[in-house]
């Protein structure tokens, strides 16, 4: 007791109030404020860029979903010589329609109303809208009907914003009759040479099929590899080598995977070019390392006590893995899979190597038919000279981003469902 008392007397208390100390404290607070300010400005900057991107995309892109139209009055009874609506109902409808010569009827009607040069005002494929209208609503062939047909691309651009001088003049001339309608073609058509006729459906379907194949191949193989490497494989030089190789593979530039796909799937296996199957396989090669790495981390994070508990009551190694480790690791594995799939969805370069950049005007009907995917379609349209493609490119980007968001939302929903609460 005595010694501690002397200790207190000898003790020289810290002077928290002296100048040097006060200044050190001020400096520490200042450093903290600086760090916070840096963080906040970084967030503001990135949010600003994101907002800029969104505004530009949506501003340009929304116009891609609309089209400029002119009314055309078609006197069907006179021009068809009295076709009846019944002809175009049912299974024979399309065949009968082909013999009707809709294109000529439309052209003639246009020339009557807009003069000899009238056809040039309209999109070359615009008459197909009339075809569709007749099939959906055969009644119109028995009456005199006014239909709204898409105008030619330059006029469309000029009406929506600013176009070439001649187009602007035409817009000024027709101002009272021009109107804007929703461009359904954009959601149902595929690639075309005329920006008024292009659509996103072909690329969207291509992306869907490709992603499906990628997921189908990469997810099971990736997850099983991760489980094997973590739970079964002996730890030795060979497995170390495999681990390093997988980490390297995840960092390999994607175009290299394109070359690999070209060499293996096209040249060696002789699979068809431009097919969603090959695209999916190539992207699966690229996605697998990401799934394996995140899967291994998720498996590693499962507490060993759970494995011991299961082993302790006589579960076999496989029962431990599939009854306990995998369910607990699944949320983490799914997170990695989302990241990998999102990267695969936005990937263009490897797909160019396997021929998915071809001009494909019909949506793919199967996994071996020629297809293209959204990012490649965006890349192709952004390369077009025709100004009408600018807004289509932006519109396609919106569709791609929506696709991505839907995919991520689904994955997050699944992840939360599997999440175990401890």
């Amino acid at each position, binding site marked *: 007791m005595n010694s501690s008392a002397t200790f207190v007397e000898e003790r020289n208390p810290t002077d928290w109030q002296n100048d040097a100390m006060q200044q050190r404290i001020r400096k520490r607070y200042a450093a903290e404020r600086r760090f916070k300010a840096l963080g906040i400005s970084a967030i503001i900057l990135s949010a600003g860029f994101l907002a800029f991107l969104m505004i530009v995309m949506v501003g340009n892109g929304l116009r891609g979903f609309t089209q400029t139209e002119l009314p055309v009055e078609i006197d069907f009874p006179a021009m068809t010589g009295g076709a009846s609506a019944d002809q175009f109902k049912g299974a024979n409808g399309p065949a009968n329609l082909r013999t009707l010569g809709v294109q000529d009827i439309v052209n003639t009607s246009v020339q009557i109303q807009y003069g000899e040069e009238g056809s040039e005002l309209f999109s070359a494929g615009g008459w197909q809208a009339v075809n569709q209208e007749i099939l959906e609503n055969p009644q119109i062939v028995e009456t005199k009907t006014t239909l709204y047909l898409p105008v030619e691309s330059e006029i469309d651009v000029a009406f929506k914003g600013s176009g070439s001088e001649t187009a602007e003049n035409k817009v000024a001339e027709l101002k009272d009759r021009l109107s804007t309608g929703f461009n359904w073609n954009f959601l149902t058509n595929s690639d075309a040479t005329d920006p008024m006729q292009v659509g996103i459906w072909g690329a969207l379907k291509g992306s869907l099929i490709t992603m499906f194949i990628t997921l189908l191949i990469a997810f099971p193989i990736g997850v099983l590899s991760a489980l094997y490497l973590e739970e079964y494989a002996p730890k030795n030089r060979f497995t170390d080598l495999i681990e390093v190789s997988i980490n390297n593979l995840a960092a390999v530039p994607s175009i290299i995977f394109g070359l690999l796909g070209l060499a293996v799937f096209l040249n060696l296996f002789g699979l068809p070019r431009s097919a969603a199957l090959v695209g999916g396989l190539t992207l699966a090669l690229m996605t697998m390392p990401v799934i394996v790495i995140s899967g291994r981390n998720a498996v590693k994070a499962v507490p060993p006590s759970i494995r011991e*508990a299961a082993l302790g009551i006589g*579960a076999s190694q496989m*029962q431990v893995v599939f009854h306990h480790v995998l369910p607990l690791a699944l949320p983490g594995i799914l997170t990695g899979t989302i990241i990998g799939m999102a990267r695969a969805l936005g990937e263009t370069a490897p797909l160019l190597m396997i021929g998915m950049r071809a001009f494909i005007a019909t949506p793919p009907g199967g996994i071996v038919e020629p297809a293209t995917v959204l990012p490649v379609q965006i890349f192709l349209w952004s390369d077009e000279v025709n100004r009408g493609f600018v807004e289509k490119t932006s519109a396609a980007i919106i569709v791609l981003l929506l696709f991505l968001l839907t995919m991520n939302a689904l994955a997050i929903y699944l992840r939360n469902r599997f999440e175990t609460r401890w």
Partner: protein
Amino acid sequence: MTTRNVDVFYGEKQAIKDVSIDVTMDNVTAFIGPSGCGKSTFLRCLNRMNDTIPIARVTGDITLEGEDIYAPKMDVVQLRARVGMVFQKPNPFPKSIYDNIAYGPRIHGLASSKDELDNIVETSLQRAGLWGEVQDRLQDSGTALSGGQQQRLCIARAIAVDPEVILMDEPCSALDPIATAKIEELIHELRGKYAIVIVTHNMQQAARVSQRTAFFHLGTLVEYGVTSDIFTNPTEEKTRDYITGRYG
């Protein structure tokens, strides 16, 4: 269960040297000793949990009812069903209480019907003294129970596969005194139905729950005998020093 001349190596390092012990059905056997003396290592040899450590190597004879458990034809999955284990930290599965207990019987096919399984779950929980506390919430998560309840759940889970031996690796070290008392009470009740081996740091606990005590030091078995003798009249000086708190 008998062990003769058991050595355990971790790589080059010898963790257990020449240990021979008999574990009997009517006794609770306690392993005591300072940290790192190898008592947990030895315990984990008895149901081959050391198999999961690649560098661990076990030599000597360990037999369960005359069968060599390290023989190549021994099925380790069945062995672990016959020699159950309770761990230091309660480790219920993140599943319902019911599923925690039912898991073992399910994977071993011990119940042929839902009723039979229900029956096993109820008996196991009753034997572990947990039935009264959880019978209304069998579908709640096992991890939502308190620490002591979780440990009794783990004991019930081990009982559910009807083992011959239950190994307990410091089962109370993560629990408060009241929960500890309940576990000790439970060990008393289970005595005679199962051969129980318990590793503990707590000498009072060893004295309270066991009939046989083995004292380990630096990988060797220093002394093994009737608990009361070990605590009141040890033959080895090391044992006396440890029990009187001179080291350890």
